[in-house]
């Protein structure tokens, strides 16, 4: 298990969110989640320009084992997607909190992030699962 970066916030469904300097929100799935899923073989990305609601499914990650929805932690507009994942979905297995980011949202209300778990609360959550 890799260290959980301190600047991330988490959904209980294992997505992470990071507020960038320009105010956009980068989203991925946690290292714990990629471990549960196993080797990833396919990522279905949203389209740039899609509008998303907090808590709505907007991407899918598939491992050899199963498909899993990825929920947006915030409402807003998709402004970037990690197209490199189409050819190298295993990047998420290798670097879930870094190169394995999935999409970026221009949030309509950054206040929604207050609802998310901080790294300590998330670490506690996944400890309880094991």
């Amino acid at each position, binding site marked *: 298990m890799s260290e959980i970066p301190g600047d991330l916030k988490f959904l209980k469904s294992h997505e992470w969110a990071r507020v960038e300097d320009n105010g956009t929100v980068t989203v991925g799935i946690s290292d714990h989640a990629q471990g549960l899923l*196993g080797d990833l073989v396919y990522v279905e990305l949203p389209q740039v320009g899609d509008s998303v609601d907090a808590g709505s499914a907007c991407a899918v990650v598939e491992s050899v084992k199963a498909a899993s929805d990825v929920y947006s932690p915030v409402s807003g507009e998709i402004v970037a997607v990690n197209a490199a994942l189409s050819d190298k979905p295993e990047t998420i297995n290798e670097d879930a909190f870094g190169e394995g980011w999935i999409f970026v949202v221009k949030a309509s209300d950054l206040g929604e992030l207050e609802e998310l778990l901080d790294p300590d609360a998330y670490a506690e959550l996944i400890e309880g699962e094991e």
Partner: protein
Amino acid sequence: MSQQTPLNAVHRQLGARMVDFGGWDMPINYGSQIEEHHAVRRDAGMFDVSHMTVIDLDGDRSRDFLRHLFANDVARLKTPGKALYTCMLNETGGVIDDLIVYWLAGTRYRIVSNASTRDKDLAWIRRHAADYAVTVTERPEMAIIAVQGPTARERVHGLLSTATSQSATALARFAAIEGDGLFIARTGYTGEDGYEIVLPDSEVVAWWQKLVDAGVRPCGLGARDTLRLEAGMNLYGQDMDETTTPLESGLAWTLAMKDERAFLGRAALQAQLDAGVPQRLVGLVLEDKGVLRHDQRVITDAGDGVITSGTFSPTAGKSIALARVPRDATSFRVDIRGRELPARAVDIPFVRDGQARPGL
């Protein structure tokens, strides 16, 4: 509380991710399912399949009994040690289980069947065995390690006594020998050469370690599933069950119906043949990116069908599936989360001799 094989603690020490598999606490992988898959296709891997059911049979009429019980014909076993793959059918031709039966010697036979079907298999076999005065002995004290891959056999041979190693080297496909306290069968569920080794629970931890030391990679049930599907092998409960006949499950080749032998389920199979088998199992490959999964709807030009087993094929690098479709279907699309993606029917196995079939 789920059941455990004698290797449970070993799996945990190796860092396996454990899952409940039909009431058994089993390793799904030891890190990377795909790497384990490739190890079996390219070198040698092993699986703890001790959850499977071993049943020994004996009695003067055991051969007659098994010719009645099974849809394939044990009379095809011409020499002791030979193995036969068969379905065991109910009266309506549905599959109670698929299994391998070995002729051990004389009137003795051994069955290796699935784990999740243990209770109903034993009940069915015992019920019918009574008429033939055949004794049915479950062997829960036996463990099984499947060692599979192009180098699997030679790695095992290096661990055997000279005499047993010589016998194993000479062993034909789908046959078994006994030696060094092991029952060594040249069978498997991966499409690769190798052995399934039946041995006492008390010996299995030591043998597992010897195999690790000989360079055989521990592999979980996740890789076992992708390997068997690439090899075009059915999984009981998913690709066939008590509601489907072997004729609808790609298993017509396992039915011995040329003579008049009256096996259980035969009348129902004959009726289905006379009326026309309404559906069949086909191999599908997805043209686009995405992953075919169990239970997805298949839209065809002859009505809807369903994916019975689907996965990403690590060998082919694309998604493959078995699907049950209407008999006359010729074009296929699969509903993946509301999107209809084109699929192509292909011959199975999808993978042969470690390689994806040309054109897959």
